[in-house]
């Protein structure tokens, strides 16, 4: 009997709920957020801050002004693309933890186009960067998919490990062959030419990547619910055995889905280098590929919900800097952000699972 031992012959186990009610599905996130804010405020009070003031600062910083809102959208773009990327893999029970690396490979490929094949019309160059990034990310997703499809090699580990390879490869390029010759030896590539940068909306930093994200969400929705392929993906995710009986080609779907997943994450990389940094540089992503996993789960793997959740999480990140401006140390901001995520994810688990206490024979103890 597995589970957390909590006394003599007693274990605490998580059991999947047979069904979960609509009301619980709506209520639980609300309760989780209240618990999160409450837990956070205890922590803030203990460290001598006024929680209400801090929360107001966070919310108003992220959503309270046109500028704050625009920056929240900017941060939401990579989260959205990566969140969609991992969600389609998760739907098939493929644990693609590699969005971070796929993002970097997309960024590298887009930078390669911008730096070395940047001549031509803006539309042409951007289209080429788009395709290169999607292809590079897709290939990076495909690499761990092949051993997974053929030999059932655990993709959680391989995708995770390939993140380090991709990040180090990108670093190698900016520390070495792609370093800007006029950059005082600093590890940065040259700045992209103007026509290799994504256009902005008005005076903000919101770039065309937002449109990529929204189109990707619609496309994923259509694929998943209105195509035969999407049907296969969903069936394989729900029950691989049933899928095999139905004659679905699981190996082929693993390859296709991982390529699609990697390609979307690669686009996030293109959007970041072309829209935000306009050059390849180290620390391009502050972990978007990992945060995207949370985004995907909170969005329950639904493309439109993921789009919404990515704005909320982006707000949490953007609001963090505002909290610092009101005097909260950076480390405390991180703790608070972590606490909020902890409660929300914890609540999420409880919508799908019961906590039960069972005795040694596995019989539930009435309590």
């Amino acid at each position, binding site marked *: 009997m597995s589970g957390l031992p909590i006394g003599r012959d007693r274990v605490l186990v998580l059991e999947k709920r047979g069904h979960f009610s609509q009301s619980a599905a709506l209520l639980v996130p609300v309760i989780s957020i209240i618990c999160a804010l409450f837990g956070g405020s205890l922590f803030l009070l203990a460290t001598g801050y006024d929680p209400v003031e801090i929360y*107001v600062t966070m919310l108003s910083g992220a959503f309270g002004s046109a*500028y704050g809102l625009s920056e929240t959208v900017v941060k939401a773009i990579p989260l959205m693309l990566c969140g969609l990327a991992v969600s389609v893999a998760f739907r098939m029970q493929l644990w693609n933890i590699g969005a971070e690396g796929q993002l970097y490979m997309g960024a590298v490929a887009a930078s390669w186009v911008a730096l070395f094949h940047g001549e031509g019309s803006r539309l042409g160059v951007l289209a080429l960067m788009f395709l290169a990034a999607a292809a590079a990310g897709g290939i990076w997703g495909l690499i761990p998919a092949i051993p997974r499809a053929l030999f059932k090699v655990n993709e959680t580990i391989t995708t995770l490990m390939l993140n380090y390879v991709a990040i180090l490869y990108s670093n190698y390029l900016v520390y070495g*062959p792609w*370093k800007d010759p006029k950059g005082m*030896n600093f*590890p940065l590539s040259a700045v992209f030419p103007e026509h290799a940068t994504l256009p902005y909306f008005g005076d903000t930093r919101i770039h065309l990547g937002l449109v990529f994200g929204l189109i990707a969400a619609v496309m994923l929705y259509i694929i998943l619910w209105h195509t035969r392929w999407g049907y296969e993906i969903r069936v394989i995710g729900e029950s691989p055995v049933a899928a095999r009986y139905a004659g679905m080609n699981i190996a082929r779907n693993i390859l296709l889905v991982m390529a699609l997943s990697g390609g979307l994450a690669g686009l996030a990389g293109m959007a970041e280098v072309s829209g935000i*940094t306009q050059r390849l540089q180290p620390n391009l992503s502050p972990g978007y590929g990992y945060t995207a996993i949370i985004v995907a789960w909170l969005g329950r793997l639904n493309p439109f919900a993921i789009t919404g959740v990515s704005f909320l999480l982006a707000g949490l990140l953007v609001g963090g*800097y505002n909290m610092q*401006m009101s005097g909260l140390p950076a480390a405390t901001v991180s703790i608070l952000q972590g606490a909020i995520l902890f409660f929300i994810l914890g609540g999420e688990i409880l919508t799908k699972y019961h906590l039960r206490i069972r005795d040694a024979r596995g019989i539930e103890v009435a309590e």
Partner: protein
Amino acid sequence: MYKKVLALITVLLMAVAVFAGCGGGADKASSGQQGEDKSQEAEKTKVAFIYVGPAGDAGWSYAHDLGRKYLEENVSGIEVTPPLESVPEGADAEQVIENLVQKGNKIIFATSFGYMDAMEKVAKKHPDVTFLHCSGYKVLDNMGTYFGRIYQPRYLSGIVAGKTTKSNTIGYVAAFPIPEVVRGINAFTLGVRSVNPDAKVKVVWTNTWYDPAKEKDAAKSLLEQGADVVAQHQDTPGPMQAAEEAGKFGVSYNSDMRQFAPKAVLTGPVWNWGPYYAETVQAILDGTWKSEQYWGPIGDGIVDLAPYGDMVTDDVKALVDAKEREIVDGTWDVFTGPIKDNTGKERVAAGAKLTDQEMLEMLWFVEGVDGIIPQE
């Protein structure tokens, strides 16, 4: 069962209502507060700082934070915003700087090289705000740069290290292979070899400004290779702690690090930003500030040597004092020829002196440095 659920929902709804009520009330309260802030703003100029590490890193950002506090205490008519710590030198920097402008800050100090492009972008959009960037080279009418000639105290600390080493191998934990760091290594090595021509300085790159564990590990590897003094161009006391643990010596950087490794730290170049921050902000308030590239010498006090550890003898201190006087008087500076590079080629002829521009672009090692500058 239904009753239970109903009760639960009622309680929750009440909780939500209470919370929402609080939130609403607080909103009003804080907007009232903001109104007050605005009326104060009319008189007080808001000044903001951005750090690359935590203010408590005991090194680079800590030194800037001491300067920030000095500014707060010594200049009136300003409101110094709490510092923004650990802002990554990448995509986020532009957002953070722009956000500070949006929040009404009129003077913004960005204290790391990697903020240069982000600051330039924001500065072009806001001509009414004064931007000051530490250690860069891009200037606009409303954006100046500031830095100190830290290579001067580095040279002096090299004298102490050269007099201390027995193995004639000195380690140097260095951040990035950029001219600023290379210049420091060269100045230090020239100082070492001015008193000990047989000594060598071994360099290890960490490719990070702030990473306590990595810095310490780099120092350990140098100690294992026979170094008995370790110098650093890093932001934390990690390398000093490694020296202390190995029973060897260290030359610190940024701030007085003796408290972290009392038996190891000989001395070290330190930053003293306070007076510069105070003067600059005062000049901006008075309207006398003009965009410039300030590179303050040791005579201005912006750079200095940390207090000596107990093991440093008076003879050595006297040697250092004599050299320091020459630098302050302007009769001599660190990069005065003859200087050869570490391939034996003469780089500075006897009697000649490197210009500021040559120093700012320095990407070669002087004789006595054991290391390479990764370059494409």
